[in-house]
């Protein structure tokens, strides 16, 4: 029972990297940070379209929150200017706080949604905010089961991985 769920460490030990998919930025709304929600064909057999789109949309909403131009960001900017930006030595900016939230969200999504399906999301911050990198893992010791064995909707076991 427990072997059917791959946690992140197990995934790295038992699986080998098959390929990577890169979700590009979507510039249709200007230079704000947004990623395309177009479903890549390589993930077709791995994850449900809806789950994937939900993840990307949530990330987009986080980035929109970070880059929101409004009262609080102006206040932060003016306060920083008034202190000749020395305040940044001891205070975290709003953007940095949201980026931390995003890191936690991605970690959580990896553990709950992606790792059980043999996928791994890389935080866009580690790729210069250019792409969301999704690594697709194959089970190393899957003799009988196909590479897409771990992707069924209910997250049931892939037979090969259990037999160790």
């Amino acid at each position, binding site marked *: 029972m427990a072997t059917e769920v791959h946690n992140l460490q197990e995934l790295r030990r038992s699986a080998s990297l098959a390929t990577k998919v890169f979700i590009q930025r979507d*510039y249709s709304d200007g230079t704000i940070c947004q990623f395309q929600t177009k479903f890549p064909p390589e993930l077709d057999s791995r994850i449900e379209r809806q789950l994937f789109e939900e993840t990307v949309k949530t990330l987009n909403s986080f980035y929109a929150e970070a880059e929101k131009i409004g009262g609080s960001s102006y206040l932060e900017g003016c306060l920083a200017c008034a202190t000749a*930006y020395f305040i940044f030595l001891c205070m975290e900016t*709003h953007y940095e706080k949201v980026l931390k939230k995003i890191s936690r969200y991605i970690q959580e999504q990896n553990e709950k949604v992606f790792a059980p399906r043999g996928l791994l999301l890389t935080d866009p911050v580690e790729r210069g905010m250019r792409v969301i990198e999704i690594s697709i893992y194959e089970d190393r010791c899957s003799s009988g089961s196909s590479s897409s064995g771990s992707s069924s909707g209910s997250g049931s076991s892939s037979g090969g991985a259990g037999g160790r």
Partner: protein
Amino acid sequence: MSVMVVRKKVTRKWEKLPGRNTFCCDGRVMMARQKGIFYLTLFLILGTCTLFFAFECRYLAVQLSPAIPVFAAMLFLFSMATLLRTSFSDPGVIPRALPDEAAFIEMEIEATNGAVPQGQRPPPRIKNFQINNQIVKLKYCYTCKIFRPPRASHCSICDNCVERFDHHCPWVGNCVGKRNYRYFYLFILSLSLLTIYVFAFNIVYVALKSLKIGFLETLKETPGTVLEVLICFFTLWSVVGLTGFHTFLVALNQTTNEDIKGSWTGKNRVQNPYSHGNIVKNCCEVLCGPLPPSVLDRRGILPLEESGSRPPSTQEASTSLLPQSPAPTDHLSSDEMPEDTSTPEEMPPSEPPEPSQEATEAEK
């Protein structure tokens, strides 16, 4: 076999970053390679202000008001702080694509355009996007192996793609881009005010003292005054002009690069899609908007197996793990360096800005 002395040294990411930047304080400070003119800027500001505080301020504080040196000190500190912020921070460098990503993009491009035979120069790679009902083209950067975001540009001096690239300023020794444009603007603004302030009070000092001991005697007593007045006079014409120019750019939410290339002007060009149409909103966004943190992660620690046995050099772009293009001599062929887009101090501001370094890059 010789005995190796094993020293446990942590390799940080800045040591392996490609591009032509120098890093100091273990990656906390990031500048361009040529720093000579930056030292000149520092020298001029510090020298002039030292003379001002040492001579004129002492007289004026007694004769007129002690608030005079206080305001001068505040302006001086603010302009030094913003200068150092501009010079030492990451302007918004976009890290180069790792090999996997570069290969993925190449595959996509080949799928769209078809493979190019070996030896032939590939055609310029452009993707079209629509922003706010206008078509904007994304260009592919051969050095960084990425499609540049809109408003980003590749600086051939620093050999990096920079977001919202404004220009490369040798006077601050760094590129001016998304992350440090506001510091740059506040620096030139506060420097203008400081220059006007010092100039005005030098005149006042000479006038007051001349009434007591005569003009020539005044100059003989404090010869530094002449030097200060000269420096301030020439600085006024250039820096104040530059501040006016950048105020215009901020009000329209444009960059120097776009202005030079005429991206949004002319009858066949699109209108600037980034402008909010409202001067106040544009100013607020450019100067007080949210500040994205640096994505370079200069002080991140490299995993041990990737740091290599070769001792990292502090200033060279090293060859190990991050992707480097083969020496991009074609990118450096532009002799029209954009250095003079920031009108330098002590030179008349009338020289037109030179064509941007994008000229060769863009036309590929």
